């Protein structure tokens, strides 16, 4: 069985699990709703202030919501049996990372679309000011979160205090994602020009961590 084939299998299995049980997706959706609702109630009402803070708040909300999803990435018990089988396949284990991260990516994109909708409904955010840029930021952000999150999720398998540990491990590393994505989004919504440097740095970040995840997974899954 070839590497990409393994990745596809892992990806499909995770996705099927997500859609069937609706655990992960459902919980993330409700959580996002909660967070956005709280933000909307608490944040000052002036339209301009909202517009200024929305991109950042959006990404903070996404960050917390993604934690839920990422923690699930390597959690189920049946998982470990299936994982042990996969690990024996004579392929680069990095492909398992690709499959897992891919499934998380899909979930994250779903959550992003949902959260963006919530922001429109509750906070009157008009994405049509820069839809392409926002979508781009969303995609790059989702890829980054999926890559780093999947890697760190694997690093905390069987470790104590995982619910505490995962965010502690995650937040400093994904800070660039938050900064890049909210900056692009803010600039797009305000009609400002977005520096090319930003796009390059963001893409590079995603690449670097996708590669790190891929190459390092061989070592990570050695148990």
């Amino acid at each position, binding site marked *: 069985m070839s590497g990409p084939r393994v990745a596809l299998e892992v990806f499909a299995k995770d996705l099927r699990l997500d859609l069937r049980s609706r655990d992960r997706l459902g919980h993330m959706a409700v959580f996002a709703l909660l967070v956005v609702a709280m933000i909307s109630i608490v944040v000052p009402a002036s339209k301009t202030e909202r517009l200024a803070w929305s991109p950042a708040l959006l990404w903070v909300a996404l960050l917390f919501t993604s934690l839920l999803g990422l923690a699930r990435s390597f959690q189920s018990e049946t998982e470990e049996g299936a994982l042990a089988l996969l690990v024996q396949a004579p392929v680069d284990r990095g492909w398992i990372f690709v499959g897992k991260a891919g499934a998380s990516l899909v979930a994250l994109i779903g959550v992003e679309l949902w959260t963006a909708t919530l922001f429109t409904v509750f906070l009157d955010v008009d994405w049509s000011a820069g839809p392409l840029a926002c979508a781009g930021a969303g995609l790059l952000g989702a890829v980054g979160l999926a890559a780093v999150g999947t890697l760190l999720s694997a690093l905390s398998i069987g470790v104590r205090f995982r619910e505490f540990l995962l965010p502690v491990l995650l937040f400093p590393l994904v800070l*660039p994602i938050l900064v890049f994505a909210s*900056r692009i989004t803010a600039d797009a919504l305000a009609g400002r020009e977005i520096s090319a440097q930003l796009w390059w740095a963001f893409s590079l970040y995603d690449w670097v961590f996708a590669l790190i995840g891929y190459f390092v997974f061989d*070592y990570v899954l050695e148990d």
Partner: protein
Amino acid sequence: MVSAAVMLSVVAALAWLLWLAGDVTGRIGTARWVGGLALALVPVWLLLVAYYAPIEVAQGIIQKIFYVHIPAIIPTYFGFILSAIGGVLYLRTREDRWDQLAVAGAEVGVLFCSLMLVVGPIWAKPAWGEWWAWDLRLTMTLILWFIYVAYLFLRSFAFGSDTAKTYTAVYGIAGVGAIPFVYFALDLAQSATMHPTNPAREGLPAEMGRTVGVGMLTFIWIFAWLVAQRLELASLQARALVASRAETA
């Protein structure tokens, strides 16, 4: 000339620590020379700070905190890099000694990083009126600290299992990978404010430059000596773990 000595010291300290890790118990004797060097440098540095460095016009004597704050930068990053090197070497060779080097680097590094975060505000409050500012350097140091702490938490929570060493090695690599991006991102986000303590390098008077340089030398060797001690401890503890496992087997 002092800066040449600083760069030389960094390379020498790195080489020594890598060599030391090769056989800690056998080679730890050399640490006394390093310790002696560090100890000898301390009074030199302090005397320079007290009598040689001029009192700066704008800030007055408060500015002298500069000479204990800046030298902590190199050990902060040095520890990080040492940790990453140890991690990579561990993943490739699976030899415990490199994992021990990684831990030693991380622990001593976080110590100096914490010092920066404490001494910085002690300087900032009287000098500029506020304890903290979200400028590039301070924030960068804080994020670095978070990464360090996350590393140590991971290690502590995963302790005992064989995977602990692998996990922390990987996280170390991920951490180092993230650093340049964090820097770039913070630079972008902070384009408004400027670090108040940024004297233009050209404008730094020679006496100040030399004093801070000697401070850097002092701290580099203190750092190296502390890492060596921590390394020995890690080596001893690893042995104890192996022995106790053999006993219960």
